[in-house]
């Protein structure tokens, strides 16, 4: 049982960790472009910010999945 719980914990960790890395990679590209656009036109801050957080969905899904997996452990 203890080994199962350990595996579940590792699974949850992977779910959140990998999705966080994916989000970071995606936001890196968007963030760079957004900063570039802002340098040209400062009013784009709002839109840039919004575009930058779009990949946040990935990590949110990761978090949800992690929570569901932990739920398995009971």
């Amino acid at each position: 049982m203890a080994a199962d719980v350990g595996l579940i914990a590792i699974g949850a960790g992977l779910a959140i960790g990998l999705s966080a890395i994916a989000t970071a990679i995606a936001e890196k590209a968007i963030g760079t472009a957004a900063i570039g656009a802002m340098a040209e036109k400062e009013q784009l801050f709002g839109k840039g910010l919004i575009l930058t957080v779009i990949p946040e969905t990935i990590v949110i899904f990761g978090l949800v999945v992690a929570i569901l997996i932990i739920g398995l452990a009971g």
Partner: protein
Amino acid sequence: MLYTERMSHVMIVAPKHYQEKVIDRLYELGACHIEDHQKSDQLDIGKPLEKGEKLAEILVKIRAIISYLGIETAVSNGKAKELTEKDYYELGKKSKELYLDVVKQLDAIKQSDQQIQELAEKAKLLDIVTRLHLKVETLKETRALAHAVGTVDSIERLRGRLDTVTKRYELSSAKDDKRNLVAIFFEQGKKDAVMQALHEAGFAEINLAGLELFPQGAEKLQRKIAGLRQERHAAEQRLQRIRQEHESFLLRNERMLAEESKKAEAPLRFAATGRSFMVKGWIPKRQLGHAIGELNRITGGKIHIEAEEPKPKESVPIKLKHPALMQPFEFLTRLYELPNYKEIDPTVLMFFTFPLFFGIMLGDVGYGLVTLLLFLGLKRKIPEGKALLNILIFASIVSIGFGFAFGEYFGFEHVAPETGEKLCSNAGICLHEEEIEHHGETITVATFPRLLSRAESRMDVFGYDVLSILVIGAVIGFIHLNLGLLLGFWNALHHHGFMHAFLEKISWMILEAGVILIAVSAQGVFPISIWAGTIVLLAGVIGIYFGDGIPGLVEMPAIFSNMLSYMRLGAVGLASVGLATVVNENLAMPMMERGGIFIILGALIFLFGHAINIGLGVLGPFLHAVRLHYVEFFTKFYQGGGIEYTPFGREHNDA
């Protein structure tokens, strides 16, 4: 409220001699959004009013003075009086005099600065000469004797080098702050060799040329500098006086002239023939009657005004129209894009859902109170950010509400029984005692009342044990997205007719219904055949194909991932609860229990941890709430792309 301000397209044609009057009146009305006339072969654009050039000239002078004097251009209200030809002449004369005076003073300051700097350099050199016990008179080159003054790192090394070249030299040295100052006198005949030796010893020469003007020494120099300083001060004083005396004159006239020259340039936006002019623009329907009446009155009816409904393809300027309470939320709409004329303005919807989403995510009484106070304070400090801060104030209040619902106070969901008893006897807040499992032990705690615990409450979904808050998020998503689809249906219905609207929007709802039916029958909740759901689902897919084409089919899973995306309402909150719990139970509380100095340390950890969490707790929920609207909700119905309504008239800076 659901739609933007209704507009009428107006065309005003009048004889040219009414042009100035009409412009004045339009300016006063401040209701007409002028459409710039594009020059064509048939109809040229108008010429600026005659006085325009003169006005611009004075305006440039006055603005120059304002900027030289560093006056802040505040907005002064009130209508400028009508100016006659003579007034303009006077104004022009006065502003020119002032301008010349200011420029003269600025020049004087600049010159004094320059001279003071030069003299200060000289004073430094004189100081060197004095330190070396030299006299300015002795520093003249003679036929026999040459000299060099400068700095060097090591005097011994210098002597060593010099000794190899000549024995007949005299060296005097002194200390500066950091440097070794040296003066060397030697035979003119050995100059080249000596200079070479000096160079090799790392000698840096100081040029003392020009000092012979001050043989009397430092005193005279200082007197001169003091004199210059006084001149500079006098010029500054004079500028200060000009500023005090004329500040209101300058600001008043800057504003007046700016207005007048805007009026004078207005004909550039009109169409003109030899004897008449034509203005095209947009006036809000509510103001149309009044505007037409006024224009007719001042021209004695010798004006032709035609007003008509906007045509389908015209781009109508957008003026958002909301009660004061909802106006801050226009900020969020603008941040995305202004709505176009034919669609529903989403501001009113965001007024309800934005604080709701923010509140569910932050959901803590303590945090809500802190952010509420913070934003109330900031609103005083930063009046420009009023709209955004008002939104956040609303959102903070809702967060406090959800904090009570979730029973969270700075991340504490319960307190120790002793603290609970103290609260009961001292403050009259009696908490319910409960036994919970904590790290495998059962402990008794006094728990806060709540409708739902974000971290603990679970529910059964098709046999899976899921946190309730996540399910609530998804359900809110389901409702919100379908609301979006219905709004899209409504917009399309008015745009393209029933069939198009149905296929484009309702098909998605049929698809959802199909999936739900299949899930329900597969779980055996209702005794219906799985085929019923499949048929409904297929109907939905076919509808989407005819409504949105292939892209629609590709996007099909998106509607479900959008719904799941609303689970962030729970997840972002859970992350914040998690962090708060770590700060309280794993860091601050164990510290404080150790007593003594650790209590202070624990309190610091508590403050610091919660400060970070509140920062994240504002940023995260704000961005995610905004994003849920922009990405998930707006894509179902909102097109945007409206241009801002900017009426010709006085600019309002009260926004």
